[in-house]
């Protein structure tokens, strides 16, 4: 029996950079293409405006609406997966990025994934699998100017099991 959850997942990393530079890395495609599995990002960063993550071939991966935006410190938006058919029927999640100055040339970066509508717990594994790799890449890009080689991780076992049940 699937367990449902509304639990949020939170990831924190500290990056040797400025809030302005970190904001640029989160909101411009020149950076996201490096560390976000090749995704570009499009938004006018206004409340109510659209936000889109797109794969290199132009496919919309994720679509959402900006709920809050306070450059260069905070943005919060709805998150709807378009590209993976097994996930596109799901209710929206909410993703936010918070950038705080934690010291001289150090920011504390907090990424939060909220799930206001109850979700199958196994789906959270997808985020637990992918976000640490994305955030590690963001940090490497800002601190070293280079991205490491990494393939997008496939769906974790719990998610594969979820997909299998859907197909039954």
């Amino acid at each position: 029996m699937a367990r449902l959850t509304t639990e949020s997942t939170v990831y924190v990393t500290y990056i040797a950079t400025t809030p302005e530079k970190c904001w640029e890395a989160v909101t411009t495609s020149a950076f996201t293409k490096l560390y976000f599995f090749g995704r570009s990002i499009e938004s006018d960063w206004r409340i109510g405006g659209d936000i889109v993550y797109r794969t290199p071939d132009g496919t919309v991966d994720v679509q959402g609406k900006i709920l809050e935006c306070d450059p260069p410190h905070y943005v919060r938006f709805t998150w709807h997966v378009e590209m993976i058919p097994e996930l596109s029927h799901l209710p929206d999640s909410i993703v936010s990025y918070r950038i705080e100055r934690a010291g001289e040339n150090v920011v504390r970066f907090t990424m939060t994934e909220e799930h206001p509508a109850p979700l199958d717990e196994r789906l959270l594994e997808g985020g637990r699998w992918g976000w640490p790799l994305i955030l590690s890449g963001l940090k490497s890009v800002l601190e070293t100017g280079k991205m490491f080689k990494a393939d997008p991780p496939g769906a974790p076992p719990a998610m594969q099991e979820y997909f299998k049940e859907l197909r039954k």
Partner: protein
Amino acid sequence: MNKAKQVYVTYIRSTREKVWDAITNPEVTRQYWGHNNVSEWKPGATWEHRRVSNSSVDIAGKVIETSPPKRLVISWANPANLHDADKVSRVTFDLEDMVDLVRLTVTHDELEPDSDMLRGINRGWPLVLSSLKSLLETGKPIDIMNLKSSPDAAKL
């Protein structure tokens, strides 16, 4: 009692040998963690987390399992609580190779729910792992002992 568990995953452009050394060699831990991790790193041996500034032992425990450079399991407690089983938690470091990366997973479990230790490590691990990654990738750690709004970090 229901114990708490936290998992922290970070990807570091490095080798498992270097990451292993960065966890177990006090000459390296002092650079990014503000503490010397001191032990023989053999099963059953004690380990101590000694603050660089004044040598106080902030955390201590025993080595439970060691298989360099893949997996290290240690117990973890405030030294005053070492004999109170409820207050002794457990930390597992798993190191996996991925192309030119190491996936480092820190699993901290057997934690007392709603405890100062749980709150402390939840602030501390992201700091420590961020600083470790910076040191190995850029040669320069994050000065975690002198950050704003991180009072708990000084102990970890």
